C-alpha cells in the first residue's frame, strides 16, 4: 500500500526506535505534525523556541547515547536551530534534525519562509540532504540516523519539502545502508597499539588525557581498567568529565584553562601523554609550543582529522576508543605480570602530583556576607551525592561546576564545550529529564545564560519535567567581567546585567516554584527545599559579583604559568574601590 511522505517519515522514525521528537510546527511541516498527533509511539515535545528544541535533543542524546531528534519548519524554524547544530557538531552529539522546506517547485523562488537549509547548515552538520523525491525518503532517513550515530557522532540534517511529505510512495523500510564513501575505522592498528603499550610500560611520568570521545564510546570501564592496572593518573577535558570517577584517587579533575594546578603541572612535566578521544582544543593546550614539552604522545581517536590537527602525535591510533583500549588492555595484561613493579615505577610521579595538589588545592573563602559560587556547587554536590544528571550553561558557573561537582558516571555531565553556547543548559536539562523522568536533573546556570532560553519553563511545566534550576546570580556576565578585570583594567563594557528580572516571580509566572537565597546562611535550606520539591524549581542564589575563577591559564599561556589568585593590583583595586564598580555607584548588582 502506498503511504504519504508524512506517514513514511513517522514509520521510519518508529523503525529507528525514536520515542521522543523535540520540535515546533509551521506551514510546510503541517502534514507531518498531523500524522504525529494521530499516533502514540512517538511523543512530540513542543518547545517554545526552535533553539530550545535543538538543545533539548542534545541533552537527550548526551544523557542517553541515542540520537536526539528535532523537527522544525522551514525558514526561521531552521535558522533557529543553527546554534544547536553548530553546538552538536563541535561536541560530536548525534542529532537528526528534520526541517521543512517549501515545495520542490518553489525552491529557489524566495518563497514564503524559504531558506537554503542545506546551504546554511552545511558547515555545521556532519552530513545533510535535501530529499527531492518521496521514494528516497525512507532510505535517506535510515542513512541519516546511521551517519549521526556511527564514527565520530554528529548532527545530520534532512530537509523535507512540503510536497514530499504529502505525495505517496510504496513504503518498505530499507534494511541496508548504501554509503560507499563512508566507512569509519573501528578497531585500531595492532602494531600501533602494541607500540603504545610498550611506551606505557616504561614511562615514568605518564598521563591519561580523556575527552568527550570516551563518553560517546562508552569507554569508562576500559579507562578505569587501564588507569588502575598501570597506575596512571587521569585528567579529563570539560567534555570528558564523568568518563572516569572524579572521586577516584587517580583522578586529577579537569585540565586546561581552569584546570587544577596539580593537573596542569602534571601535564607540563609528563613524559607520556595518552590522549583518549580528545582533540587538543586551545582551551586545553594553552600555548601549543609549550604544551607537554617533554611528552611522547599517543593519540587515540575515531576521527583521523583530530589527529595531528593542532598537536603532534608520535603514535597515532585511529579507531573507536573503547575498542582500542580493550585491545590495549589485553596486551598490557599479557605484558604486565608484575603489578607491584608498575606501582613502584609510578610512585614518585604520583607522589609529586600529590605534593602539587597539597601546595595549591582548589580554594575559596566563604564569609558570612556574600555567597561564593563555589560554596553553592560544593553544597549541591554533597546534597545530591552521585545521583544527579547535571547540565550547565556557559561561563564562570560552568567552570566552578566542572571544578567542584565531581561527577562519577559518564553521561551525567551535559555541557556545551566546543561552541560554548550560553542558553544550552536549561533546554539540555529538560531533554535529559525527558529521557529519564525519574532521575534528579540539575541545571546549573546563571542569570546571563538562563535568560537566553528561559521560555522553555513553559515546556518544563507542560511536560512535567521537574528540572532543578540552580541559578548563580552575580549580576554579571561573570567570565567576561573576570577578563575585563584581569586584562581590560576593570572597564565593564557590556558585562553588567543591571536590569534583571525578579527570577522568583518569573518562575511563579510560569507556575514553577521559585526560591531565593540572598545570604550564605540561606543557601543550604533553599537547596534542600528545592531538591525536595516534586516539580520544577528555580533557585535564585545571589553570589559574589566579583569572585574570579582560578586557577587560570591566561589565553596563550603555558600550563605551568597559571594564575592562582587575583593579581595584587586587582586585590588592591577591589579593596580601595578605585575599580570601576557599578555596584558601588549606586545601581546595585542584585535585584532589589
Amino acid at each position, binding site marked *: 500500500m502506498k503511504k504519504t511522505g508524512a506517514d513514511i517519515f513517522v514509520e521510519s522514525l518508529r523503525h529507528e526506535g525514536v520515542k521522543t521528537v523535540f520540535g515546533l510546527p509551521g506551514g510546510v511541516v503541517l502534514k507531518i505534525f498531523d500524522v504525529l498527533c494521530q499516533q502514540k509511539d512517538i511523543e512530540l515535545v513542543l518547545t517554545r523556541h526552535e533553539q530550545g528544541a535543538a538543545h533539548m535533543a542534545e541533552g537527550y542524546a548526551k544523557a542517553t547515547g541515542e540520537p536526539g531528534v528535532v523537527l522544525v519548519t522551514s525558514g526561521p524554524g531552521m535558522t533557529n536551530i543553527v546554534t544547536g547544530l553548530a553546538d552538536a557538531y563541535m561536541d560530536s552529539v548525534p542529532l537528526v534534525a528534520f526541517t521543512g522546506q517549501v515545495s520542490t517547485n518553489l525552491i529557489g523562488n524566495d518563497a514564503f519562509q524559504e531558506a537554503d537549509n542545506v546551504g546554511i547548515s*552545511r*558547515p555545521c552538520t556532519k552530513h*545533510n540532504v535535501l530529499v527531492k523525491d518521496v521514494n528516497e525518503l525512507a532510505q535517506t532517513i535510515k542513512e541519516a540516523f546511521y551517519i549521526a550515530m556511527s564514527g565520530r557522532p554528529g548532527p545530520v540534517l534532512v530537509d523535507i519539502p512540503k510536497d514530499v511529505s504529502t505525495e505517496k510512495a510504496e513504503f518498505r523500510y530499507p534494511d541496508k545502508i548504501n554509503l560507499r564513501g563512508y566507512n569509519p575505522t573501528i578497531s585500531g592498528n595492532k602494531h600501533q597499539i602494541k607500540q603504545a603499550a610498550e611506551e606505557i610500560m616504561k614511562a615514568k611520568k605518564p598521563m591519561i588525557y580523556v575527552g568527550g570521545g570516551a563518553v560517546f564510546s562508552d569507554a569508562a570501564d576500559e579507562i578505569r581498567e587501564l588507569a588502575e592496572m598501570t597506575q596512571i593518573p587521569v585528567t579529563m577535558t570539560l567534555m570528558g568529565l564523568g568518563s572516569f570517577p572524579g572521586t577516584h584517587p587517580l583522578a586529577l579533575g579537569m585540565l586546561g584553562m581552569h584546570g587544577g594546578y596539580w593537573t596542569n603541572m602534571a601535564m607540563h612535566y609528563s613524559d607520556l601523554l595518552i590522549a583518549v578521544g580528545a582533540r587538543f582544543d586551545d582551551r586545553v593546550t594553552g600555548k601549543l609550543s609549550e604544551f607537554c614539552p617533554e611528552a611522547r604522545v599517543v593519540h587515540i581517536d575515531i*576521527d583521523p*582529522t583530530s589527529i*595531528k590537527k593542532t598537536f603532534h602525535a608520535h603514535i597515532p591510533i585511529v579507531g573507536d576508543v573503547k575498542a582500542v583500549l580493550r585491545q590495549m588492555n589485553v596486551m598490557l595484561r599479557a605484558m604486565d605480570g608484575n603489578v607491584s613493579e608498575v606501582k613502584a615505577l609510578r610512585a614518585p610521579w604520583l607522589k609529586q602530583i600529590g605534593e602539587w595538589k597539597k601546595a595549591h588545592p582548589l580554594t575559596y573563602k566563604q564569609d558570612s556576607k556574600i555567597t561564593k559560587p563555589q560554596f553553592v556547587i560544593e553544597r549541591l554536590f554533597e546534597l545530591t551525592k552521585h545521583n544527579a544528571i547535571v547540565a550547565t550553561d556557559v561561563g564562570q558557573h560552568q567552570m566552578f561546576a566542572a571544578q567542584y561537582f565531581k561527577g562519577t558516571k559518564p553521561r551525567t555531565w551535559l555541557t556545551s564545550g566546543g561552541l560554548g553556547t550560553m542558553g544550552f543548559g536549561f533546554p539540555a536539562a529538560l531533554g535529559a529529564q525527558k529521557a529519564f523522568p525519574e532521575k534528579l536533573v540539575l541545571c546549573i546556570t546563571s542569570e546571563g545564560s538562563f535568560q537566553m532560553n528561559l521560555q522553555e519553563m513553559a515546556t518544563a511545566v507542560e511536560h512535567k519535567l521537574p528540572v532543578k534550576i540552580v541559578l548563580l546570580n552575580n549580576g554579571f556576565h561573570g567570565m567576561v567581567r573576570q577578563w575585563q578585570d584581569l586584562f581590560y583594567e576593570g572597564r565593564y563594557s557590556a558585562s553588567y546585567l543591571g536590569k534583571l528580572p525578579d527570577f522568583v516571580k518569573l518562575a511563579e509566572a510560569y507556575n514553577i516554584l521559585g526560591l531565593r537565597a540572598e545570604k550564605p546562611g540561606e543557601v543550604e535550606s533553599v537547596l534542600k527545599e528545592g531538591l525536595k520539591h516534586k516539580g520544577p524549581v528555580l533557585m535564585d542564589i545571589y553570589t559574589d559579583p566579583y569572585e574570579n575563577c582560578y586557577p587560570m591559564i591566561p589565553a596563550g599561556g603555558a600550563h605551568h604559568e597559571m594564575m592562582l589568585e587575583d593579581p595584587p593590583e586587582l586585590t588592591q583595586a577591589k579593596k580601595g574601590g578605585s575599580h570601576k564598580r557599578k555596584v558601588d555607584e549606586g545601581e546595585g548588582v542584585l535585584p532589589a
Partner: protein
Amino acid sequence: MEHIISVLVENKFGVLARVAGLFSARGYNIESLSVAPTLDPTTSMITIVTAGDDRIIEQIMKQLNKVVEVLKVVDLTETDFLDRETALIKVHTKPEHRDEAIRIADIFRAKIVDSSPTTYTIEITGDVDKVEALINLLRPLGIRELIRTGRIAIARENTRTTSPRREPALFKT
C-alpha cells in the same frame, strides 16, 4: 608546496559545495578546481590544485575523506602523473602582429579556433608550463581575454622500467 589532489565523489548535487566549503571554512587555498563526471556516471572527479606544508596537506586529505560523499582521495603529487590544462586566449592583433601570433601558436602546436579582423582566439592544451609559456609570449601582442580550465591530472601507468612507479596514496578503498 603545490599539490594536485584527485577527489572521487558521488555525482550528486551539493557535493561540490561541501568540498569547496571545506577549503574556505578552514582557510585552505584552492588554486584551481575542475569537476566532471567520470566513466561511471554516478561519480564525478574533482581535481583540486592546492598548496600548503605537509601538515596542511595531511589535514586536507583527511578532511576530504571525512565527507560522506567522497569515495577516494589521491594526492597525485606523490605519484608519477600527467597533468593538462586548456586555455582559450583571445589576442588583440594589430595587422603587423597577425603573422607573429600565428607563428607563436604554431610553435606551441596551438590552434587558432576563431579569427576576426582584430583578434585571434588561440586554443592550447598542455601542462601548466607550456600554457604559461604561450601566454607569456602572447602577452606583448596584447591579450584581450584569457580563460583557463584549471588543471586535470591522471596517474601514469607503469610502462617505464627506469623509474618504478610508486603507488598513489589511497585513503579510502
